[in-house]
């Protein structure tokens, strides 16, 4: 990589211009910005939120649906306000079609709220800005049930006229299919009736924060990647940057059974931190482009205080140190992968990814029953999920709990989209599969199992509609891979391994049945373990696994102190919807895994 003289000069100017500025300082910002008026996004475009009005529209729609023949109907209204702040690409560029060539001589990036409209016509973000994109989505959705069939209708219009139209339309859609199709048996069962429920997530509403305070905090957050880029080893041209997302959702629910609630949830999360660090090739180092989601600890379903109280300096140092650790492979040595069977130690984030992709997704009952066969896929617990209940599907070390109750986790709510109170429930006990994720309709499918085991035939509150524009489907709750009794951590697991490989984090790629997968270590590096010690980096190493064997081969899990949270997401359904959850896992050791070179062709 050669540096152009111009880029070098700009780089020096940047360094000179910023060296006297203390980090996380708001002084610079104050000097260069006129006093802002106290305009809250909330005041301006959030005028719709009036939960009483929302409820009255919901009831109107239910009346219309039942009048049109629905024997059950439920309604959601959602008001979702979000602001995604993305910094421009903060870096030093060598002429890139003239668009990103000019790094601002002021050095410190500035903030605009709102994006920028480039003169060329495209909406773009200039290198020195962080742009917030406000987005308001309101939705009104009605689901109606007629003789075993579901109909749905939604729109962004909150009016009496549309309430009636949507209610009738949903019932008509259901009736059309009840008439055309064969009989379809559905039992929704009974659930506790929530009436006039109200829940507001504790914390500071991110859209009720004075603009000055918000800008101050954003400004200091924006300095984080700059700090990364100030280091002499940053890669010129690598678009560093970071993002912050603020989200608030007000959701009102009502059903023809008389249930009703309103709940408000927040998420405030720094989203991404990326830097490029240049490796010294002669010393055997490689470049590292480090792009990481913000650690999910603290959990992101919080109010503004989560952003305000971040220990930013500590955070950036931790993240930079992680990136550098990946780069300094010279100290570790590099080894080509020797294909074969190894014992694998998965760090807590790695284990969490495997929990989600091979157990979380697989225990979605709709997938196992084939309801997602034409969409996100099936499950290795299909086509008859009942036959796996009560059987050993994992080693006795594996205990998996699902919940929608963990404070500040993203899948947490007070009630689900059928009005069922959210709860925690075990899925795997000592390696035995004991349950699946369910909605009201799905709980009935497990009636025999529940009755036999003295469990209530009742939904686990996993019905979720992404917004009221979407029809509820079963979505993942949060998961916990329970800690073992012994107080051991990942170092103990490594110490106890003779010939193995250590994966700190990475990503699982699985087939549509979640049956087989490949675990790759990106962006971290896989390390050889020899006689209890970490050895050289195994470039390109991946784990080729069968989900069933992987979990049966777990020989040890970490103790409670070694648990960590990660964030996971999924897309399922037709039309597709996105869901999010948090997974808490402990490190684990799995024997006899196949290590392969993931970049090699056959």
């Amino acid at each position, binding site marked *: 990589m050669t540096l152009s003289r111009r880029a070098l000069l700009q780089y020096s100017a940047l360094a000179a211009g910023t060296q006297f500025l203390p980090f996380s300082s708001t002084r610079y910002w104050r000097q260069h910005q006129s006093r802002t008026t106290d305009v809250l996004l909330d005041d*301006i475009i959030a*005028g719709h939120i009036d939960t009483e009005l929302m409820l009255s529209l919901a009831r109107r729609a239910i009346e219309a649906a039942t009048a049109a023949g629905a024997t059950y109907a439920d309604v959601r209204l959602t008001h979702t306000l979000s602001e995604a702040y993305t910094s421009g690409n903060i870096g030093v560029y060598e002429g890139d079609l003239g668009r990103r060539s000019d790094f601002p001589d002021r050095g410190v990036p500035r903030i605009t709220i709102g994006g920028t409209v480039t003169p060329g016509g495209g909406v773009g973000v200039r290198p020195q800005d962080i742009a917030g994109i406000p987005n*308001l989505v309101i939705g009104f959705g009605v689901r109606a049930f007629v003789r075993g069939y579901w109909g749905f209708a939604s729109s962004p219009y909150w009016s009496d006229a549309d309430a009636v*139209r949507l209610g009738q339309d949903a019932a008509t859609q259901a009736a059309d299919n009840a008439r055309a199709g064969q009989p379809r048996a559905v039992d929704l069962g009974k659930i506790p009736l929530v009436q006039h429920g109200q829940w507001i997530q504790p914390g500071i509403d991110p859209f009720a924060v004075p603009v000055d305070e918000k800008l101050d905090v954003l400004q200091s957050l924006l300095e984080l990647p700059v700090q990364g880029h100030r280091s002499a080893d940053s890669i010129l041209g690598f678009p560093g940057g970071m993002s912050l997302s603020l989200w608030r959702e007000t959701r009102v629910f009502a059903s023809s059974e008389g249930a009703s609630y309103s709940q408000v949830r927040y998420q405030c999360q720094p989203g991404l931190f990326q830097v490029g660090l240049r490796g010294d090739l002669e010393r055997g180092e490689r470049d590292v482009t480090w792009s990481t989601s913000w650690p999910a600890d603290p959990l992101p379903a919080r109010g503004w205080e989560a952003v305000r109280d971040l220990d930013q300096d500590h955070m950036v140092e931790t993240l930079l140190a992680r990136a550098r650790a990946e780069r300094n492979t010279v100290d570790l040595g590099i080894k080509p992968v020797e294909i074969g069977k190894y014992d694998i130690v998965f760090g807590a984030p790695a284990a969490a990814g495997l929990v989600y992709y091979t157990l979380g997704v697989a225990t979605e009952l709709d997938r196992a029953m084939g309801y997602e066969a034409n969409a996100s896929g099936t499950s290795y617990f299909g086509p008859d999920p009942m036959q796996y209940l009560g059987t050993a599907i994992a080693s006795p070390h594996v205990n998996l709990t699902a919940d929608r109750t963990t404070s500040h986790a993203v899948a947490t709510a007070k009630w689900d989209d059928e009005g069922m109170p959210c709860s925690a429930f075990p899925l795997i006990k000592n390696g035995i599969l004991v349950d699946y994720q369910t909605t009201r309709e799905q709980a009935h499918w497990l009636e025999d199992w529940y009755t036999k085991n003295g469990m209530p035939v009742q939904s686990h509150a996993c019905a979720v509609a992404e917004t009221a524009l979407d029809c509820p489907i079963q979505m993942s709750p949060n998961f916990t891979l329970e800690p073992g009794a012994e107080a051991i951590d990942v170092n103990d697991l490594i110490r106890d391994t003779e010939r193995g490989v250590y994966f700190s984090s990475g990503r699982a790629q699985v*087939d549509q*049945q979640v049956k*087989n997968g490949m675990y790759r270590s990106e962006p971290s590096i896989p390390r050889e373990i020899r006689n209890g010690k970490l050895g050289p980096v195994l470039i390109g190493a991946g784990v080729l696994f069968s989900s069933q064997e992987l979990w049966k081969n777990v020989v040890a899990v970490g103790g409670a102190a070694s648990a960590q949270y990660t964030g996971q997401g999924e897309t399922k359904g037709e039309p597709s919807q996105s869901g999010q959850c948090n997974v808490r896992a402990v490190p684990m050791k799995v024997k006899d895994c196949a290590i392969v070179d993931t970049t090699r*062709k*056959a």
Partner: protein
Amino acid sequence: MQRSDVRRESPTFTQVWPQEAWQALATRIFTMAKGGGETRLNFNSDWLGFTRWARNRVSVSGDRNNNTLTIGRSLNSDGQYLTLNTVDDAALQQAMQYLEQTITQHRHEYLTHFQEPPFQADDYLHPTLWFDKTVALDGGPRAQAVQQVISPAEQAGMVSAGYLAVTATGVAVDRPALDMELYYPTTEAQFSITVRNPQGTGSGWAGVNWNDWSRIDIAQLTTTALHKCLTSRNPVAVEPGRYTTLLEPQAVYDLTHVIMGFLSWDGNFRRRDFPFHDESVPIRTKIGQQLLDTRLMIRADPMDPDLGFVPFDSNGEPYRPAVWFDKGVLTHLSYERRFAVQQGLGNVGLLNSGCFRLEGSGPTTTVDEMIATTKRGILVTRFNQIKVLDFPSLLESGYTRDGLWLIENGKISKPIKNFQFTESPLFSLNNVEQIGVPQRVFCPGSAAMVPALKVRDFSFTALSDAV
């Protein structure tokens, strides 16, 4: 705050906003803008009608309306935007007020200025993308159509799941500073079906999307999926390795469409991550280099009767006919108008919509002929869960699914267990033996005409016994 305003009736349209209604709304928004500068609007008004089924029964049928309105407001070349899906006057007034207040809080100057001339009317093409037959397929007719495809699967003792959906969209871009008032109505129908046997040892799939519902033969697609299910049951394992491989059009699309995402002069990746750029020299590309088999061409034309797509992007810049690869040579990378003007390439950019037609010159071969001329090879229905491992080479990894067969001595000899593959589309498109007739594949929201291909040395890296 005027909460009472919320109840005021908003104009609702059960399908899409017609142009007159949209123009009236746009005019209302423009009059709300104070203090000069430019206001630009993007508006998509959508209707989706869908029917979903599984285990041979409809699981839900529905209608969804939505609008996406993006308001961009600039003053003295500072600007910002926001997106909302509600269009009542109170919300719009408030949104505009928010934009204007936040612009004036933060003054920035642009480092480069680009004076844009307006586009001319004849810069735009006018493909027919709206089909009344698509829009007419609401809940009742869909319920009938779905029964027609569930019955054959159920009668054969198989289990089907699928999705039939129609969308109608009005796409509008308004930029008064350029005298631009674009509106395009478009429809799309999509159908896909998965048929599995009750034991879960066989699976078949078929699917397609077209602007015009009447071009979708759901009976034929159902027959294909059912046949694939029945003939893929109880697969046997064969060794992973390199095989002569017959890729059906959907498999070719799954493998190759990633190429379209990189046909750009500029992007958010480091240049060294571009397959079509030369890492060592800035802005040097591989244009002029032979990158694919000399028989292959990749092109896109909004007027292509089998391809048709909205003829402009979200900035209102027109899509023109483009040849990206000719006789295997990379001929163009996409660029915006700004680049065209700067480089003296005219007044209009060459944009990439992502839609494409991949075709061969010379004789075409049917899949049956490909099978008949194969001594030993593998027939692939489709891939999924594809992940790009390496951007410069576009090396991908993923899985086969919904029907995989071994071909021996010119005949399909048996169904085989699925594979994980590790292969680059650039490698495969350089190792082509036979080329089929392009046909539409399943890529909702986009359009592609792709042929079946017989390629040499396709790399299957591991068994994956999922069905």
